[in-house]
């Protein structure tokens, strides 16, 4: 179906792809694996005509192609869900899905009725009924946006569908359904290239997989022909055991560091109470979009609080803005490092020092020497991989970017660290480093609130896990009760009856 040979692409001095080969059969689901920065997305962009390779040839169904732009790729039946969402926030769901090939009628006028019908068909194919076709994409949760993105690709009725971390924000049930559909498409001859950092998904759904490392092709094997450890070794070039650091022991008697009572905000946080002690990691779990993001942003003062109180070390804290939060020792590692965590065009050095700049000089000026020393020590402490601190943050890989976001906060004297899914889209090696960092914080007596979409992380890192449902805490699990099954059950049992509950439970079994 698709064969790419000898593809090279470099950006300035960075060789993203070096004579890489990739091939994918007709009617197969093929995983593309690799650590952050291995060149996966670059290959995807080349296959979809967004970027042009410096060298190499691409053939689709035997025909050599040379895409001048994305339009050409679409014309050849390639549809892609890109890693960076390419949606239009202020257009409706329906318009987004059919952008560029809307059904038209008289005088080229877009036919709203046919558009609605086509969207209805697509939604039915995945059993989606909770998204309104007329809703603005800006109003959707991240997972729903990712669904829209997938529908957008599907609407092209592709011969080759590429999902570049297109499921990273999806809950398990959605992924299950998606793959049910993909299998159907596969039967019709469609090929799928699937990129994900979640090993479980790959194991479960794909036929074959190809591993990239540093822009090179390493191996292509059948899905079950290699063990997890072997795959990780292929990705990283070394063995890495995925293991969680030992949890700090927190005494029940210790006074709470952070106490939250009845916190409500916006339309999706409806009253949450929780406590965090020093040395403790409190996990936040739940299906996507149950108010977890709003909880963290409200605690950090970025969202306006409608009700509730926050106490830190027993004293009431008025936190209405992020600078007040910072002053009270709260740090936030936000959801999207590219748009919320970092100023991508600015240097590594500048990004690391935003939150501590006042300390690195006098009279409003920055002392270059002090700043350099500080940055060097932080880069060392977090093992940030960057050729120089003068490089723009944009040029770093995802994991290293995430380290910059954390570095920014480590020396602000913060006691409470709020993490929003910090390891999303990060490779195994870097994930491991993050686990160690979080454990390190608890050893220093900090308190951590960790929201993660990966249940295994919550199990491995947290002393307690609060499962959220519909803007409230449905259940708090502790100690041995923190298991995959319990978390899933808590996510589903409480709250509104969900029409799709049966499907998911069935799938989970």
């Amino acid at each position, binding site marked *: 179906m698709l064969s790419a040979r000898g593809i090279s692409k470099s950006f300035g001095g960075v060789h993203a792809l070096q004579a890489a080969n990739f091939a994918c059969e007709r009617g197969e689901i093929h995983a593309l694996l690799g650590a952050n920065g291995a060149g996966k997305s670059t290959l995807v*962009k080349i296959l979809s005509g*967004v*970027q042009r390779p410096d060298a190499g040839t691409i053939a689709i169904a035997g025909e050599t192609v040379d895409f001048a732009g994305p339009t050409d790729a679409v014309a050849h039946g390639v549809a892609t869900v890109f890693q960076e969402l390419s949606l239009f926030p202020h257009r409706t769901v329906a318009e987004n899905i059919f952008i560029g090939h809307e059904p038209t009628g008289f005088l080229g006028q877009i036919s709203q009725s046919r558009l609605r019908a086509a969207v209805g068909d697509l939604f039915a194919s995945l059993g989606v009924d909770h998204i309104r076709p007329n809703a603005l994409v800006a109003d959707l949760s991240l997972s729903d946006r990712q669904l829209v993105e997938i529908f957008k690709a599907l609407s092209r009725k592709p011969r080759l569908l590429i999902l570049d971390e297109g499921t990273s924000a999806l809950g398990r049930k959605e992924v299950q359904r998606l793959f049910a559909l993909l299998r159907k498409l596969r039967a019709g001859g469609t090929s799928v290239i699937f990129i994900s950092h979640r090993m479980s998904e790959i194991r479960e759904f794909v036929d074959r997989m190809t591993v990239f490392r540093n822009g090179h092709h390493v191996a292509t094997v059948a899905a079950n022909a290699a063990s997890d450890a072997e795959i990780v070794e292929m990705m990283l070039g070394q063995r890495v055991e995925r293991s969680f650091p030992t949890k700090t022991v927190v005494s029940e008697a210790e006074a709470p560091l952070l106490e939250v009572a009845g916190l409500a905000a916006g339309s999706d946080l409806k009253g949450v109470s929780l406590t965090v002690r020093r040395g403790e990691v409190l996990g936040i779990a739940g299906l996507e979009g149950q108010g977890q993001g709003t909880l963290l942003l409200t605690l*950090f003062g*970025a969202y306006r609080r409608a009700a509730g109180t926050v106490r830190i070390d027993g004293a009431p804290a008025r936190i209405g*803005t*992020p*600078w007040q*939060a*910072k*002053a009270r020792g709260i740090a*936030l590692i*936000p959801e999207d490092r590219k*748009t*919320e*965590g*970092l*100023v*991508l*065009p*600015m240097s590594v050095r*500048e990004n690391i020092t*935003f*939150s501590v*700049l*006042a300390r690195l*000089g006098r009279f*409003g*000026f*920055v002392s*270059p020497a002090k700043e350099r020393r500080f940055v060097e020590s932080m880069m060392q402490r977090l093992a940030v991989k960057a*050729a*120089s601190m*003068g*490089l723009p943050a944009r040029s770093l890989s995802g994991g290293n970017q995430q380290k910059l976001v954390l570095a*920014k906060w480590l020396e*602000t004297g913060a006691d409470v660290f709020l993490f929003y899914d910090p390891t999303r889209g990060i490779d195994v090696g870097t994930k491991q480093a993050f686990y160690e960092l979080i454990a390190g914080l608890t050893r220093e007596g900090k308190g951590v609130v960790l929201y993660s979409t990966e249940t295994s992380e919550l199990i491995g890192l947290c002393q307690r896990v609060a499962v959220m449902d519909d803007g409230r805490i449905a259940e708090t699990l502790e100690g041995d009760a923190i298991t995959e099954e319990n978390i899933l059950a808590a996510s589903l049992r409480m709250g509104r009856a969900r029409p799709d509950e049966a499907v998911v439970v069935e799938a989970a079994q």
Partner: protein
Amino acid sequence: MTTSRLAARVGAFTKHGVAVSYGLLVVLIVAAVIYNPAFASWGNIQAQLQIATFIGVIAIGQTLVILTGQIDLSVPWNLTFSSILMATLYGQGYGAVTAVGAALLVGIVVGLINAVGVAVFRLHSLVWTLGMNALLEGLTMVYTNGQPPDSTIPGFVRFLAVGHVGGFPVAPIVWAVFAAITIVVLARSRFGRFLYATGNNEPALFLSGIDSRIVYVGAFVASSVCAVLAGILLTGYASQTYLGMGNDYLLVPIAAVIIGGTNIMGGFGGYVGTIAGTLIVVLLQSILSVAQIGQAGKNIVFGVIIIALVLLYAREARPTD
């Protein structure tokens, strides 16, 4: 300094078009001198620097504001109003310090209002500062009843604008001092750092626990105060204040900032480039004026040259390239 840091600096220098704009400035000067050798005379250099000072000082503020991704269209009547206020107060017997102080106070207040509109009410400065300009125009007319005061100007204002020390005009020295301060502030201060961050990605700065509203206040107040300073210098230069004295100072300083390689959407650039931009604009106007083409031709040539310059070095990168 390690070589990689040096390389990074050189890289940044050329990337933002600063080097190119200086290169162009040199080319323009050479062309001008070949066209008319008198361009190289000390008298002409003084005259050009004198005129460049007004634009250059306003362009300081405009650079700061543009770096945040905004623009200040309230300069013309802000400049006029504060200058007239200064001249009136001085004429009424208040001391020079009081008169100049009052003008600067007006600048600060106008800057604050501009900043509040942008930072608190989140209105685009293109419209907000335009409204402010109209408001100030009205206030000027009401305050003066349409007749600016007699032109006794404080002596030191005249000295700053047209005086000489050791055969060198004072005004360009004033400009140089402000320019140096601006460059250092942008490169080395916390405010400068946050200014670039605001222009690039305000939410990220906000989520770093920094109040970006302060950045807007700083930028707009600086811009407004620069407009007032330019007005004061202009008053000294013309030995009088008059209605409409700010009319020439809306678009030209902005053109200087753009030609100097600062990104109009914010986040990139700096005052080093603006200095070249200012000199290019002034020189260009002077050449066009000496070349005796009519106003229509002048407009066309000026527009074409801006486009040509920007095509040379300020083209945007596409997000996916």
